[in-house]
């Protein structure tokens, strides 16, 4: 078998093999059981709580949890605006980069607070090292926020009937210190030995072998890059993200970053099963997600390997595949694989330029974000999937004529309304955003990098990436304009907090209900049949809502090229 395909298989298998035990570890962390890292983190967390005056043992119901979450996110947002708009005059700015304009700072802070990392700037020229590290802080805590919300849902299904769902701050801090940090630290060490810089010295001047003078951007990147993957944030230190030879210097660093981003989204699925003591349910969820993931990723690898037919027609040796926007050390196959991993989970880091991928590869990247529930971002992926489960439970219940139930709780009108709103919000934001941009060419047309169908795809991609809190882009789009900064900023806020609050509210409402023991009449949710049902719901919601838009963009481009 060829070495490039073998590389992909090893990355994927290793991620799964590591995710299962790591899921067990996550369960132990959140249930407060003993772990190996207690001696390090118990004292550190004690300092956190003493200074902040928070009592991590206080139980909260779902409304108190969400209030705490929104409040601390507001604090991060305001502080972030302050830092990014003054960074030019603050320390740690060896390259003398300027402060951000208000609209760019708004977009940047929002997109890092909501775990999206859209990045309408380029790291080398748009941020000081202080600004970079402020964003790194947001990468930790925004990932922690998503995980904390997911654990609230876990709790709702563990106890038979309760309104106490644990403490938000406790979950947030533990996610950051005991789960995100140790993994990031290991990845940071691997990256720095593979050649990623970790220096505060700023740009270097040099004369190259041919005699031209150039500058080389460096920076304290080795600490920053791990959390962008481990927390499925995706915001890169350098402009081109993990395509940059400092950010991703070798095939080994590429494998490391790949496993780092798959690890926690997968592990959270297994943690869910361990936590509520229903491991079969984990396997149902994991199975559906994996099938969906493979259906998107295999075609991409094949299409990128085959390369651009218009270039093949020119008569050159096209056997390396679609190399426009790709790096030789990574190759077309590993880049095609990455393009789907980063879009199904909400990382949005790239190791090749998605704008230059083949038309239907671009479509699969879009579909991955439109569905946004195959693995998904840390914590929030599971929340999105949970909404689809609720929908599937309801529809199956109607089909067999029984009261819809999930894990012993009746699903009634109120929960269904929330689930419907959340499921429809996502296509609503994407399609309305794109429609507005297309209808107002005075704001959008000048920013397009490609004409025709592909130009439409660039706009569709930008809103899809925002609504999925993904952060990757068809980067040709000149997106640092007031139109793009503000409109995607609004999409970002709505598409982050409602899809967190919605599922937590459903779980909170279900948790308060009476527990109905399983009987012969209960619809079993941990079976392959039910998995198929969930898959069908996902396919129908995504296909029906998005097909017309996809037909105007990537599908039309495909038929113009082949």
């Amino acid at each position, binding site marked *: 078998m060829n*070495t490039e395909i*073998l590389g992909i298989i090893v990355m994927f298998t290793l991620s799964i093999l590591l995710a299962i035990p790591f899921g067990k570890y996550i369960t132990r962390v959140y249930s407060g059981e003993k772990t190996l890292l207690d001696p390090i983190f118990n004292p550190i967390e004690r*300092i956190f709580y003493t200074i*902040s005056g928070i009592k991590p043992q206080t139980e909260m119901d779902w409304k108190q949890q969400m*209030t705490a979450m929104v409040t*601390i996110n507001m*604090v991060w947002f305001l502080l972030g605006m302050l830092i990014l708009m003054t960074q030019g005059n603050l320390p740690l700015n060896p390259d003398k980069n300027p402060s951000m304009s208000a609209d760019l700072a708004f977009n940047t802070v929002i997109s890092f607070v909501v775990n999206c990392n859209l990045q309408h700037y*380029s790291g*080398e*020229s748009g941020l000081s090292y202080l600004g970079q590290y*402020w964003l*790194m802080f947001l990468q930790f805590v925004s990932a922690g926020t998503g995980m904390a919300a997911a654990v609230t849902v876990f709790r709702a299904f563990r106890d038979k009937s309760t309104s106490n769902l644990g403490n938000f701050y406790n979950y947030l801090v533990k996610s*950051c210190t005991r789960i995100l*940090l140790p993994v990031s*630290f290991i990845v*940071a060490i691997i990256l720095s*030995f593979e*050649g990623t*810089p*970790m*220096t505060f010295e700023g740009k270097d001047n*040099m004369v*190259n*072998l*041919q005699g031209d003078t*150039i*500058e*080389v951007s*460096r920076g304290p990147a080795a600490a920053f890059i791990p959390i962008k993957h481990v927390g499925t944030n995706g915001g890169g230190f350098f402009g081109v993200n993990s*395509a*940059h*030879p*400092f950010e991703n210097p*070798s*095939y*080994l660093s590429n*494998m490391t970053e790949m496993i780092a981003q798959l690890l926690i989204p997968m592990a959270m699925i297994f943690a869910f099963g361990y936590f509520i003591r229903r491991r079969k349910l984990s396997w149902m969820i994991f199975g559906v997600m994996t099938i969906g993931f493979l259906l998107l990723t295999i075609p991409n690898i094949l299409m990128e390997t085959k*390369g651009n037919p*218009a*270039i093949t027609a*020119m008569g*050159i*040796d*096209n056997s390396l595949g*679609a*190399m*426009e*926007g*790709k*790096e*030789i*050390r*990574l190759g077309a196959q590993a880049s095609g694989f990455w393009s789907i991993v980063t879009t199904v989970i909400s990382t949005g880091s790239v190791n090749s*330029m998605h*704008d*230059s991928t083949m038309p239907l590869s671009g479509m699969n990247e879009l579909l991955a974000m439109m569905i946004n529930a195959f693995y998904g971002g840390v914590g929030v992926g599971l929340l999105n999937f949970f909404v689809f489960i609720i929908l599937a439970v309801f529809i199956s219940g109607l089909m067999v004529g029984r009261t819809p139930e999930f894990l012993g709780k009746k699903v009634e009108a109120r929960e269904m309304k929330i689930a419907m709103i959340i499921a429809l919000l996502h296509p609503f934001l994407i399609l309305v955003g794109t429609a507005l941009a297309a209808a107002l060419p005075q704001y959008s047309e000048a920013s397009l990098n*490609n004409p025709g169908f*592909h130009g439409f*795809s660039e706009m569709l991609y930008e809103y899809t990436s925002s609504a999925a809190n993904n952060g990757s882009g068809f980067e*040709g789009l000149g997106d640092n304009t007031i139109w793009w900064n503000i409109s995607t900023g609004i999409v970002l806020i709505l598409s982050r907090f409602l899809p967190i609050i919605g599922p937590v509210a459903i779980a909170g409402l279900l948790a308060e209900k009476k527990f109905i023991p399983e009987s012969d009449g209960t619809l079993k949710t941990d079976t392959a049949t039910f998995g198929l049902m969930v898959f069908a719901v996902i396919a129908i919601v995504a296909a029906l809502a998005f097909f017309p838009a996809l037909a105007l963009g990537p599908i039309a481009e495909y038929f113009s090229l082949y």
Partner: protein
Amino acid sequence: MKKNILPAIKLTVIMILFFTVIYPLAVWGIAQFSPNAGKGEVIEHKGKKYYTNIGQAFTVDKYFWSRPSAVGYNAAGSGGSNKGPSNKEYLAQVQTRIDTFLVHNPGIRKSEIPVDLVTASGSGLDPNFSVQAAKVQVKRIAMVRGIEEQKINQVIERNIERPLWRNFGPQKINVLKLNIALDNIGK
């Protein structure tokens, strides 16, 4: 919400200290033992230093050309062309690159030109090209430098970097290392 504000601010401050000061310092400390102490790997050649991982523009005929770059290999920034696969202007540009290559490399058939030599990389700083990209330039370099092709082929052979642990990923050549090795054999 009010009673959450103060704890939220205090928790934020202490967490900033931990995640943006203590954690990076720990990584920085360990990076001091990495190649070139975390300042980016370098190659020394004739008293000058070059970054191993940062590709350079090679456009003159006596060197192996590197891949096209959307940012001219200026590593102050980075960037790809972001051209879509069906963009007519882009396809014309690729065709021009093929024609230019053929002009500078007489005796080469079009079907021998590998695609990486006529397409821009993602970062614009790709330090590598494919083995075929080196082989297709041997004739020209031999002519310009006046050395036998066989000698150049040996240099190429010595500079091929195999897949990771021989089993994973593509094989490749570091263009800078190859050109330095080329300078070392003379002319």
